[in-house]
């Protein structure tokens, strides 16, 4: 079986525990202190990247490329952590990674970057990404990139991908009721928007890091400026979900007790 060209689309988001507060900026809505907040690879894109690396390890000749549109300095910082996890090549686009950027504009730039990948072979192309985003985005960018690349086979909420004899792809997508829909497609090209998948976060591996970083730093150094905006959309107001904080740390309650208390707490509204 020939290897896959697995292209993962993913960018960065504020570290999930950070306190987010929308503010107006000259460029449109933004987050207060966004430049100072620690960032991580979007967790949904992270699942996609780890699944991509897992598949590439199983299918000889495969290659994983991470295409990321984000502020170069923050990308560099996040790559210091992500680069230790799994082998990949980075293609960096230097632009904003806020959830207030327009998905159409972002998708156009990402599709362009994918098309420019050296040696791109559509018959081996698997386009991976998160089925959602923690970036306040609408979670539609991946579909639009797929459309722009003319890839009709698209799957979202993916938890599992397996390669069948003959190269067909069997895909488990999340559907309502905690079940999965099983689909089979003939093979690449295909778009897979990952849910959580089934893999734990890979351990930090210094050797992987050393190998990755030989390509990551040059990729960052030549990252083209990629301005994306709000697509002409005017935001009347933006808000983050209301946080109701009532912290207790307990370690000796049974799951039943915790669930009961949560139900009572939620029922107060």
């Amino acid at each position: 079986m020939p290897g896959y060209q697995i292209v993962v689309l993913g960018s960065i988001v504020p570290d999930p525990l950070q306190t987010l507060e929308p503010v107006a900026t000259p460029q449109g809505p933004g987050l207060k202190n966004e430049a100072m907040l620690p960032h991580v690879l979007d967790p949904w894109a992270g699942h996609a990247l780890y699944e991509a690396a897992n598949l590439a390890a199983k299918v000889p000749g495969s290659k994983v490329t991470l295409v990321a549109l984000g502020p170069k300095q923050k990308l560099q910082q996040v790559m210091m952590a992500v680069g230790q996890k799994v082998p990949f090549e980075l293609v960096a686009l230097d632009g904003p990674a806020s959830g207030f950027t327009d998905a159409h504009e972002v998708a156009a730039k990402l599709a362009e970057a994918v098309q420019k990948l050296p040696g791109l072979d559509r018959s081996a192309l698997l386009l991976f990404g998160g089925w959602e985003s923690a970036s306040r985005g609408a979670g539609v960018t991946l579909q639009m990139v797929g459309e722009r690349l003319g890839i009709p086979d698209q799957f979202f909420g993916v938890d599992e991908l397996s390669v069948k004899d003959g190269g067909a792809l069997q895909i488990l997508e999340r559907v309502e009721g905690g079940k999965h829909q099983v689909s089979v497609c003939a093979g690449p090209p295909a778009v897979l928007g990952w849910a959580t998948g089934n893999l734990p976060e890979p351990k930090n591996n210094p050797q992987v890091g050393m190998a990755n970083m030989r390509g990551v730093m040059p990729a960052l150094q030549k990252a083209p400026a990629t301005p994306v905006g709000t697509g002409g959309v005017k935001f009347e107001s933006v808000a983050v979900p209301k946080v109701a904080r009532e912290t207790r740390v307990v370690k000796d309650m049974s799951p039943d007790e915790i669930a009961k208390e949560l139900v009572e707490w939620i029922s107060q509204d």
Partner: protein
Amino acid sequence: MSDENVPQRQTMAVDVACVGFGPATAGFLTTLSRRLADASKPPLESAASPGMPLQVLCYERADDVGFGVSGVVTRARAIKAAFPDLDASQIPMATPVRDEKVLYLLDPVGASRRSVTLRAADKTLRAFHGADRDSFELPWAPAFLHKTDGFVFSLGQLLQWMAGQVMATGTVQIWPGTPVAEALVEGKAVKGVRLLDQGVDRQGRPEGGAYMPGMDVHAALTVVADGPVGAVGQQLDEVIGMPPGHARREWAVGMKLVVDLPEDTPLQAGTVLHTFGFPEPEIFGFLYVHPDRVASVGIFVPSWFESPVRTTYRYLQHYVQHPRLWPYLEKAKLRSWGAKSILESGRRGEPFLAGDGFARIGEGSGSTNVLTSSGVDEAFATGVQLAEGVIELLEAKKPFTRENLEAVYVARRRDSWVEREGQVAEKARDGFQKGVVTGLMGMALSGFTGGRMSLGDEPPHPADQIGTLEEFYKGKIPAADIARIRRECAEKGVPLHDALMDRAGWPPVPMDGQVLVSQQDALLMGGKVQAPPGYADHVVFLDPELCRGCGKRVCVEICSAEAIRPGDGGTPAFDREKCVHCGACLWSCPTRLPGTDRVNLQFRAGAGGLHSAEN
């Protein structure tokens, strides 16, 4: 897991391995990376990977660079020398010092434990200046205390900025989230480092298929810069020993809040307030203002504060409510929080700075100056000094032997202002063993005489400085009440400090959910504390019997994050997921192992901690 299924420990060879990315390593890598990127000079080739450029790696324990460190007011002499065109506006939360004051805070609560001398002084001050005065600005402060030509920084943001510059050269690699378990020691030589095992349970036992033994990274030079409580520094102190007459006996834990000030705040960016006198005379404090109405406010609790209930968090809550500070802070909002140990022994705590295959820089190398209250700039300077020496050796193709490192690094350090000022400061704090007033006089005496004169004696081991509750609260809480509080807290499984401070007259803290929040909320809202799974506990109680006989459990009381709590059977319980790695438990453990300077609590390498880069 059968033996054949146990993953083998991998090895890798590099030229230079750095342990920890703090200001010292930032100075080291800034200097070294510039040389490596300088195309006008002959390339420095790797001996570990022939044909490749020099392979330089830095392993940082925290999950990102700039996590788990604290803000700073500094003269930034070494930093400015390395960045001559330094523009504070390019570094988030940085600004030049604009206005600096030293304040003596009186006790408006009446619960502070003040000596007779101090009470008399307070009474005199109020008699002359008005009974309602709560603070006094010192009309003059000695030059050695001033930072007027310096900067207010968030150390987290400064380090992220520096790391970005270093990484952008493409010549060195910095790997956060990668704790170093120990140095690879052969005799008295260091041959590299061993990274921490992953995929293990709390006791460090492999967990099924997830187990990944920490890699052995062989290096011609190991740069030890893991701070005052770092595992590798501790290991080398143990294996190689300390120079005659040197010991680490003075410590403090600094805890701070970073807050958004209200829009109508009168405080200007660059304002710096140093305080002393409250909440306890032994506790110094600070408030400094960053750009965009952000302020850092915090306190230092020292090891010579003999209270067994040294709760930094509760004291910090009372500190911010002092009438001199509260008007600025009552409408402020918490955005970050953190804590960190400071090695205050300075030059007296200096270890062997170099040996075969290793060199030590930064706070763990005894560079902090307690007279000038400055450590970041000194740490950065030692990193620069080592890098200059390393470049000299590399260009001359000389090996990293003890003799060579002493000639190029230690000699540079000895000939620098870090050393000269360190000598002046060496005994400056000894007077605090005899009381706060004597301590302050001793500092002044050392400062004015260039270190030739001082007051007091070298402090004893920190474990021996902790008194009993009965002694500490003598005259404030009867022994019978202390016994009752002990019983009640033991039954509830909670630390003693809140009950004791309530009983001693400290008022309840009016939680406002903005600045005054519970300690657990400070972890979540401020520090965003978290720990990845698959690592062993890094706080370990060696002999449970010794813990059971301790009676003081200062580790529980001082724990910055309530990660150490009363446990079953008298041995404290440790919760790795809450730990901020401040290390205060290490120097607060009152139980020494017989015949050694070591204590029953071990503070090992660990993962996780703060997830805020604003401290």
